[in-house]
């Protein structure tokens, strides 16, 4: 066990855990931030995607000891009032079915749009290919990302 000071969603959190503990479980079990989801545990599905600095990363493969000074943003901290353009676009397009994978989809999409504010369809598909949606909301996700890109650029 070891002590870590983490910057999560703009707050500093102190925790005492095994250094190998993935951020996914630090967030869910220790910080009670359950918006970040467990899907596969091997970085294949993207349900656990969070932002490390500005980058979308798989929190199931990110040991708490590797985070250091870098900031972590989860779905709970993406915006103060749930009004990030991507969140608004998801509501507008009524994207979700079961909704379980969508936090990961949104976190990946929001980091991607920051890098590439005017993506083509192919660029969206490439960027999102690591996020599985078992309900099959892919066409709506793509629409929502385009919609968010347009809103952000307006």
């Amino acid at each position: 066990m070891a002590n870590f000071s983490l910057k999560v969603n703009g707050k500093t959190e102190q925790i005492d855990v095994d250094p190998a503990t993935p951020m996914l479980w630090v967030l869910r079990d220790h910080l009670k931030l359950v918006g970040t989801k467990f899907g596969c545990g091997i970085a294949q599905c993207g349900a656990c995607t969070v932002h490390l600095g500005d980058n979308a990363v798989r929190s199931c493969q990110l040991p708490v000891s590797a985070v250091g000074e870098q900031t972590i943003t989860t779905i709970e901290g993406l915006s103060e009032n749930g009004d990030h353009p991507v969140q608004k676009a998801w509501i507008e397009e009524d994207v979700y079915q079961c909704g379980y994978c969508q936090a990961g989809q949104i976190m990946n999409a929001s980091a991607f749009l920051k890098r590439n504010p005017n993506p083509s369809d192919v660029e969206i598909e490439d960027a999102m290919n690591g996020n599985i949606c078992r309900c099959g909301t892919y066409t709506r996700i793509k629409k929502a990302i385009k919609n968010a890109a347009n809103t952000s650029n307006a």
Partner: protein
Amino acid sequence: MTLIKTTYNRRSFIKSSALAGGGMVIGFSWLASCNPTPEQVNNMPKEWFDINGFLKIGDNGMVTIMSPNPEIGQNVKTSMPMIVAEELDTDWDNVIVEQAPLNTDIFQRQLAGGSQSIRAGWQGLRMAGATARHMLIAAAAEAWQVPASEITTAAGIISHKASNKSAGYGEMASSAATMAVPEEVTLKDIKDFVIIGTDRRNVDGPNIVTGKSLFGIDIQEEGMLIAMIVHPPAFGFSYKSMDTESVKSMAGIKDVFPIDVYPEGMEKQWSDGGSIAKMVAIVGESTWQCMMAKKALNVEWEKTSTLESTSGHDEALTKLLNTSAKEAARKDGDVAKAFKSASQIIERTFSAPFLAHNTMEPMNFYADVTAERAILNGPIQTPEFLEKSLASRLDMPVEKIDIKMTRMGGGFGRRLYGTFGVEAAVISQKMQAPIKLVYSREDDMTQGTYRPTYKVKYKAGLDKDGNLIAWHVKGAGSNDDLIFENRFPAGAVDNYLAEKFILDTNVTTGAWRAPRSNFVAGAEQAFIDEVAEAAGKDPIEFRLELFDRVIKSPVGDPENNDYDPKRYAGVLKLVKEKSGWDGNQKNGAARGVSAYYCHNSYVAQVLDLAKDTNPPKVDKVWCAVDCGIIINPMAAKNQIEGGIIDGIGHATYSQMTFEDGKPQQSNFDTYRLIRHKEAPKEIESYFVDNGIDPTGLGEPSLPPVIGALSNALYRATGQRHYNQPFITEKPLIG
């Protein structure tokens, strides 16, 4: 308007709900914003009045509607309350939806399965709203001393024109709650619907996009421990012994012990299918610590039955299809004789592997069991059956068992089988503490309860004019007999024979989205395409001719046929028109068509594969649906799109295989699911507007699309694909 008696479980409308004021209020419209303003908080009613078990009305006119059925992503949490709100005649923006717990006194069929929630709930939900509306009118009639028959309602306002009086529902709620429940109520005319048939966004949407705790796996309770299981590594193995010493001393681990989940003599429910009698439980302070202990633990298993392999399943199914069934499932005319006189005979065999459900949220459940009572909460499609299983396993009356339902991160049939709920209860009982059981993805994927593996052999005979004169189908599946003998083309062919076989296996199976249809539709629709080609006919015209035959002169008693040929032909004609069908090729795309009836709904699809990409990509799917009245078009289309993508994905990429009883796939690195790049670029959905009572949409769009894809693949590549998954070494679509 329809006048109906409220005999339908009148107690639902009479009993004052025990739910009043309890439960988590899930906000809708302005209530749904993450941080309600003080003004919004002030707008919450000071008092709620129970009108009946389905709804309560606040003193300011806000309405809380209970959503009775489990929500697995089929959107019933929005669509079922919409039906109540419609008949209540309230403004949807003033509705708050709450998930009801299991309560068999008030609600019927609290089950998510078979695409039946809307169909089975339709009448009761309408009546719940209409009864409440009637009581509000009665309260106003008494207050104003005017005849109830002269009172009207609209969007939560009660009015009496002659006396120029009006009041909001909130003002009349307290006295309405004391009114007698009417013996009969008037339901709205379909043409007067203002909520049903309009786009309404998912009531949980704002909570989903902000990561609120919604799912079973998100549950956090005071003093709660985490539990994980270790189940046998292969079908055919059982628990023998283990060495717990080294693991028990690991950081955060509270206990490690074997559990008899299903001991001898326990009264099991059908929902206990796929159960594993004995396994190991690991309980600890955190999930990661349990995962580490799971890795370190050495369990000894012993072989207690056959160790089966995929090659063996395949051979056994083939063998079954080479025999004759003792009894035909359906027989019209004489196929043997007809084949002798046929000008052409086409015979093809299709197969499909086992599939895992792979809900994105792995199985989990919260349980807090004491000697006096059991509290359970989590993702379950069959709460009523879980309660019965628990009553037997815990030896506790159902009155002492309280089951709540969370939103589910997918169901697809997997959560019909609530063995994980029983496991959680047994672990909590042993620990004398509240626990949350969480499966790893590997536990989830290798536990069983799979879509069965199937094989089907079709033989068709055509006369010299290309008319279908004989049809012989033989189907077999693991623990499942596959064939719906009274579905199309039964009734359309003079000589028809259906035979079915079951292969007994110890690889456990269960209902997987659109059971049996999920394979047989694709096989049958691909076969019909090949038969139409042999007959030299357009595939849509060939099918329409057959439906026409059933309409005009059906073979056998038409009552025996499961389907309505007019509605079937209707969706085909609609998709033909919408897709601009002009044969199998259009604008450089390879097209395939398919139509199927299942779960009381009719679906026809045309699928275009773009040939200018390598491998060809699913460019567009047109889908025509007849499921009667559409409750929420925006959500209905979502279900259709999801079913199409799910069908294309599983038929193309997914399979579970076995070597000596051991699953060869255990996570998404070895089990392929469809991803963004492989999804169709566009899906267009169209509905037949016929005012027929609604049927479900969770399943019907999945089965036929596999046929449409097969047929388009043939046009694109010149190859027919008979065995799923279609993918070979070379990507077929993507």
